[in-house]
């Protein structure tokens, strides 16, 4: 009891001292206050608005909306559908992701570079693209279902189609986590076990897999959240298999039922937040992987011939499907009427350019605004989190990472509700979309910044202040040049994400500021699959070109600055 009290007292004095330390540094204080204000207005406030509207349908507090949701079987079913889909995709995605990660790190398979690229490609692929390909391949007029197999009543719409596109699109999330885990596990451990006489299968099941368990749990949860929050795929291909994100969208924008749309969004938010919090504060703490900074020796026990062939086969099949998706979309762009008239045409390009050129321009403008601000703000927050101490830092860190967990649908609805009246009347403007991009993509920029800052000896920045530079000069002239690779990586990523955003932005687009993805969605809706393919192609080309330009002008993001001694 007494010890507890003295501890609380010391926490309090510590906080007081941290505050005093910050207060004597006006620039730092101003930065912290500004960042906090931004996070409160653009991250917290919109979510609060969603909750408020769902609880006050007619201006009075009431649980009626939720009562309605729970009493209607079709709404209950929607919730169950979302979770079932999430569980299936998380499981399959983790299996595929693990297979790739294991094959690339331990499997000794050929063409590692190619397979690595394939395992990351879906992340930068435009939304709708995989659905589009699946419809072109397996839909009613699909080239496989109709032309090759002659099936008449095959229906890809629904759960099976969703599982296919989401697994292909989301296994990279699991891959990236598990790739990092397997890289960090010292192969000596596995070698040690095999020296002690364990068979290869036994080493795998008793050493490798147990060491990966926290990583596997992490990837499962992350894929689960991604699947739950997905809007682009289900809106196109879910058919009668209703999911929450789509339901919220239709309730909100189709039926103008704001309280119900908000409530459905909250139903979506709860499991997503739950999974996120479990991942962040429980699973990731259980990690056995310790980064020692010592390069692990790469003496890898090769798997048996059969295992190696099996791994190669699985990776080849998955990669083949991804490539097939790309080829299909490219083909779709040049075919007059898929499934009926296979003649070559450039009409889709003409049409797509006509309807799409404004969207291309506005998407580029919006992303160009959002990207540098995201990168810079992300780096500033990373700096605050790693290099400074102030009361409430943990809350600031959690809030800035919240966008990872909050589904885009919730954010979109939140922004509409929060910014539709003065003084923050932003609906219909470019600003609301740019702000939405900034605060949704920021976590990645922060993570990149944090990862690179913790590798830089803090005394380098201390040396700068010690010699007379203030915090902002140090940040500009010392910190930024040193974290440049991470900064550029953050920029590239947030640009791609802005270009390919759907779930939140679909609520925020207007006639003046349309987004290419929402145009692709519209074209898919009216079954102009050719035009949708062309627009997807535009998106891919823009992303690749800008990626290339960033590398040329800002430098290679992977180069490491050697720092300290």
């Amino acid at each position: 009891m007494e010890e507890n009290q003295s501890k609380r007292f010391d926490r309090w004095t510590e906080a007081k001292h941290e505050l005093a330390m910050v207060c004597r540094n006006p620039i730092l204080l101003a930065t912290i206050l500004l960042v906090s204000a931004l996070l409160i207005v653009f991250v917290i406030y919109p979510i609060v608005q969603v909750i408020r509207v769902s609880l006050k349908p007619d201006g009075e507090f009431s649980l009626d909306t939720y009562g309605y949701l729970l009493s209607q079987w079709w709404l209950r079913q929607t919730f169950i559908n979302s979770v079932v889909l999430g569980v299936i995709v998380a499981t399959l995605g983790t299996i595929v992701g693990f297979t790739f990660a294991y094959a690339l790190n331990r499997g000794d398979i050929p063409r590692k570079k190619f397979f690595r690229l394939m395992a990351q490609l879906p992340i930068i692929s435009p939304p709708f693209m995989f659905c589009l390909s699946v419809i072109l391949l397996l839909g009613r007029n699909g080239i496989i279902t109709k032309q090759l197999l002659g099936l008449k009543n095959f229906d890809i719409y629904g759960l099976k189609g969703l599982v296919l596109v989401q697994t292909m699109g989301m296994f990279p999330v699991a891959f990236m986590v598990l790739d990092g885990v397997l890289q960090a596990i010292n192969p000596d451990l596995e070698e040690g076990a095999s020296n002690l006489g364990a068979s290869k299968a036994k080493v795998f099941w008793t050493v490798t897999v147990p060491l990966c368990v926290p990583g596997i749990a992490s990837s499962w949860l992350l894929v689960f959240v991604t699947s739950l929050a997905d809007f682009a795929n289900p809106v196109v291909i879910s058919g009668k298999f209703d999911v929450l994100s789509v339901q919220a969208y239709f309730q909100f924008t189709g039926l103008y039922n704001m309280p119900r749309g908000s409530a459905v969004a909250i139903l979506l938010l709860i499991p997503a937040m739950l999974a996120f919090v479990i991942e962040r504060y429980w699973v990731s703490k259980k990690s056995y992987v310790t980064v020692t900074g010592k390069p692990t020796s790469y003496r890898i026990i090769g798997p048996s011939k059969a295992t190696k062939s099996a791994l190669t086969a699985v990776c080849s099949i998955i990669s083949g499907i991804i490539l097939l998706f790309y080829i299909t979309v490219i083909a779709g762009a040049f075919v007059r009427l898929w499934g009926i008239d296979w003649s070559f045409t450039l009409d889709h390009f003409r049409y797509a350019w006509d309807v799409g050129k404004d969207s291309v321009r506005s998407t580029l403008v919006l992303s160009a605004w959002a990207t540098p601000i995201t990168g810079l703000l992300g780096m500033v927050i990373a700096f605050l989190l790693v290099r400074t101490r102030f009361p409430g830092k943990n809350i600031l860190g959690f809030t800035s990472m919240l966008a990872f967990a909050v589904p885009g649908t919730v954010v979109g609805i939140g922004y509409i509700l929060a910014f539709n009246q003065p003084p923050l009347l932003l609906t219909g403007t470019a600003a609301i979309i740019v702000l939405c991009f900034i605060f949704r993509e920021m976590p990645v920029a922060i993570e990149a910044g944090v990862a690179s800052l913790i590798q830089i000896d803090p005394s380098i920045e201390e040396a700068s202040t010690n010699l007379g530079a203030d915090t902002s000069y140090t940040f500009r002239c010392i910190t930024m040049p040193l974290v440049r690779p991470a900064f550029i990586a953050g920029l590239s990523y947030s640009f791609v994400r802005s270009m390919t955003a759907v779930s939140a932005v679909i609520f925020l687009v207007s006639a003046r500021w349309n987004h290419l993805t929402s145009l692709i969605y519209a074209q898919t809706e009216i079954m102009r699959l050719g035009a949708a393919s062309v627009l997807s192609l535009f998106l891919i080309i823009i992303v690749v070109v800008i990626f290339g330009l960033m590398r040329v002008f800002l430098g290679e993001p992977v180069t490491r600055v050697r720092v300290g001694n």
Partner: protein
Amino acid sequence: MPIEHASVVLDRLVKVFAGSGRDVVAVNDVTLSIQPGELVTLLGPSGCGKTTALRMVAGFEMPTSGKVFIGGRDVTNTPPNLRNTAMVFQSYALFPHMTVRENIGYGLRFRNIAKSDAGEKVERIMELVGLSGLGDRSPNQLSGGQQQRVALARALVVEPRVLLFDEPLSNLDAKLREQMRGEIRRIQKSLSITAVYVTHDQNEAMSISDRVVVMRNGQIEQVGTPEDIYAKPLTRFVADFVGKVNFIPVSIVESGQEETSVEIFGRQMTIPKVSYSSGETHLAVVRPEELRLMPPDNGFVHGEVTSRTYLGSVVEYDLALSDGLTLMAIEYNPKAKPPFEIGDVAGVYFDLDKLHLLK
């Protein structure tokens, strides 16, 4: 180079870090006054709070309570960039994206100095620390010793009121370390800059300091000249930490006017007067080099040689006495005497006139 001489005063400094399990008191009520132009070393094992104390002088840490004065002015609430201290870091902390010249000149950017003057200052300081001609190199093209010189030059060029050293030589090999500490001492003396130097290496502390502050568990154990610290340690910890040592129990039998009668190794002997009362037992600090080994029937006591380490300039012996005590002796100039072998019995003698007793 005219440099303002500044005193440094730490006034009842306390620093508590809130740990996840429990709080850690890194610095516990440290009061210390450093004269202008003096080089004072904070010496102690890792975790004794010496670096935290230094970082509070620099302003990187905020004291939980207590004050820091530089040149008589209370700087406790002054941010580091306005304190005009300059630190030489353990890792050197050179800016990897700048050349040697840019690194050294960095601090001058904040000090209203004309560009040409700044350039001149940088060249002069590079000459002083022996870096002439390396100005356009990047830090990672330099050897460890050269990087160390850049760090030193970068700190010196801003003419700080206080120079701070945080274990600056710990990344260098032994030979370079000795050479660099000589140079640091020479430069610090010639510019008569006040300096605070943190190290865990007692040799470094002894050789470089005007005064040594021995710290333990966040508190000061003893402050004194290197000679005081070595010859007249106040506590067993100081005696043990600084150099090798034998602790020999001494019982006070009777204190006379000028001499005290004591019992050592069961023998009655007289030593110059000490102020302890009869009946008490105290530990005498006897350095290994004070012990003389002689044939077995000479000396106060005899012991069996249990180990013998030949180090070229000296030979170290461990001796086991019959009462269970072990002694370490160091004999200089091994060629002059026939060595003792393991198993030999040797008599032990030391000078009683300068016996130092701990409280």
